[in-house]
């Protein structure tokens, strides 16, 4: 490095880029392309080539297996329960945190982030320790013939836990940035709480919410660790799609394993596409609202 930060001219990034020698730029680009190729493009391509290795007929037949069908149905059911619940929790938490200053607010924020910090295996074990036969609530549940872990409720709980932060985390900064001026205005004009929520709050955050829902759904469908601990791996009953992929792979049924895995890969691609679209929309909305706010200030 010849230049020190102090004599670096305060210019736009584009200017600096032009100053870099051609070989530096070429190397950096090559490294990036190589990295993306090895870690993203190749594995993705390998999933689909492995899945289609014995032809499209075998590929499609993999989904007609009753166990595969049951796994897909269970995964859809779990995310159909977990995602809406997390939308409600996420909205409530984000609203409380963004709109109010209260004692314990930071604790709440940290708690929301907890599932990100905790390993998914631990998240699963928590429920085993709570609801297992020798857990805190196990004996009571057993007496009343209620099965939580090694059954659908446990899988839903574990999924809820690991996907909890996605919606709230997406909404908090958005709501903080937007401020509560519009809501206060509505209140002054005599709107009720629900009216404010449906007409102001929700429309304002709808794109951010959608973004959170997409991420939450992708994680709910793809979660492996936590679900693996509480599932019990009963075929056709408590196996989700990711667990089913593992089973097929362990049974040397590689084509079917990759075929089912390709479903998850497709889900990831769709998620990525939606996420990009929503991100673009959010950025444009924010720019617009910023511009209108700037325009309105005298």
């Amino acid at each position: 490095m010849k230049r020190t930060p102090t004599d670096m001219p305060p210019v736009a990034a584009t200017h600096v880029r032009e100053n870099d020698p051609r070989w530096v730029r070429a190397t950096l680009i090559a490294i990036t392309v190589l990295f993306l190729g090895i870690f993203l493009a190749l594995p993705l391509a390998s999933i689909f080539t492995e899945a289609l290795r014995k032809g499209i007929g075998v590929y499609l037949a993999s989904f007609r297996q009753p166990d595969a069908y049951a796994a897909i149905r269970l995964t859809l059911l779990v995310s159909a329960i977990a995602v809406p619940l997390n939308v409600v929790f996420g909205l409530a938490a984000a609203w409380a945190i963004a709109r109010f200053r209260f004692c314990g607010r930071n604790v709440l924020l940290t708690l929301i982030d907890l599932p990100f910090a905790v390993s998914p295996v631990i998240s699963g074990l928590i429920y085993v320790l709570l609801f297992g036969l020798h857990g805190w609530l196990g004996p009571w549940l057993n007496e009343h013939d209620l099965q939580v872990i090694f059954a659908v409720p446990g899988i839903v709980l574990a999924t809820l836990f690991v996907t909890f932060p996605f919606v709230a985390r997406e909404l908090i900064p958005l709501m903080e940035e937007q401020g509560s001026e519009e809501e206060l205005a509505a209140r002054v004009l005599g709107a009720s709480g629900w009216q404010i929520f449906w007409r102001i709050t929700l429309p304002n955050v709808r794109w951010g919410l959608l973004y959170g829902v997409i991420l939450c759904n992708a994680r709910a469908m793809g979660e492996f660790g936590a679900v693996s601990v509480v599932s019990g791996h009963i075929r056709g009953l408590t196996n989700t799609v990711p667990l089913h992929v593992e089973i097929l792979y362990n049974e040397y049924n590689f084509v079917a394993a990759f075929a089912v895995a390709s479903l998850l890969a497709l889900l990831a691609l769709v998620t990525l596409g939606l996420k990009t679209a929503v991100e673009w929309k959010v950025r444009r909305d924010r720019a617009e609202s910023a511009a209108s706010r700037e325009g309105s200030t005298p």
Partner: protein
Amino acid sequence: MKNRSLTKGLAALAAATTVSISSAAQLLNVSYDPTRELYAAYNSAFAKHWLATTGEKVTILQSHGGSGKQARAVIDGLGADIVTLALAGDIDAIAEKSQLLPKEWQARLPNNSTPYTSTIVFVVRKGNPKGIKDWHDLTKPGMAVITPNPKTSGGARWNYLAAWGYVLKQELGDLTKLHDAAKAEEVAQAQTKARAFLTALFHNVPVLDSGARGSTTTFVQRGLGDVLLAWENEAFLVIKEFGADKFELVAPSVSILAEPPVALVDKVADKHGTRKLAEAYLQYLYSPEAQEIAARNFYRPRLDAVAKKFEAAFPKLTLFTIDEVFGGWAKTQATHFADKGIFDQIYTPTAK
């Protein structure tokens, strides 16, 4: 529209879960890793047999995983009507920690409750490039041995004990010396040698997977290692699935008679009202039809007639039992595999 199919799905699932609790014609068999193919075949045979004799339809659900892990899940409340695990010690753990079945479970069915047996053999790459013939080849420097973790895998514990027993057999010649007080010194020396041998062997293990299937995948798919220590049935399966042009089975001179037992989980079966069905399921494992299914899935049958029929299919080697060499599972578990046991002492220092 999406909503409607969702509700349908929900209703179907609710129905499915209720069925699993109330209907008597459903069994959950919690098993270990390599029995997937065996029980897939046996379950349909038993369902046919049950329908023919009682007119009742039966669905058998399967769960597979590392034997120790599966036992843990049953202890924690996985509703297994029957367990078919890799070793008696894991079922002992269920009996002891959760009292779901009596401690004397192993005496309830013939042959120590093991309707089929297996042993531990080697799988090597085609042509046996490293020239592996017997256990002593595994400790040569530079040899990479693939075996799962004895802490979590039943198969791995059998691997470990087979190697240990081999050294004792080499040193003592006659294993009855183990129970002869006059030969105590000779036995102690042999045990020291066995410990050194296992230390050298585990020094050659680059990775410990948690289950037998994981190790097989490491060896076969990822191409790691020169030799895989495996269940005999798993070794045959690898050769069947991947071709004799890629892998070979090597039978050592001496190995252990591995007895994977089966048991009724009394309290769960009684709660589900499936005791009669579950008992019939286990007893039918000893029938000629089931014994043939076991043999075709590379498990050694117990029934003499079937064993004779499939005699040529299995390699001939000297087998010793865990009872004669190690004095049963409870003792073995405590000495070798418990926390700070011999395995911990010999493996930790060489761990990279």
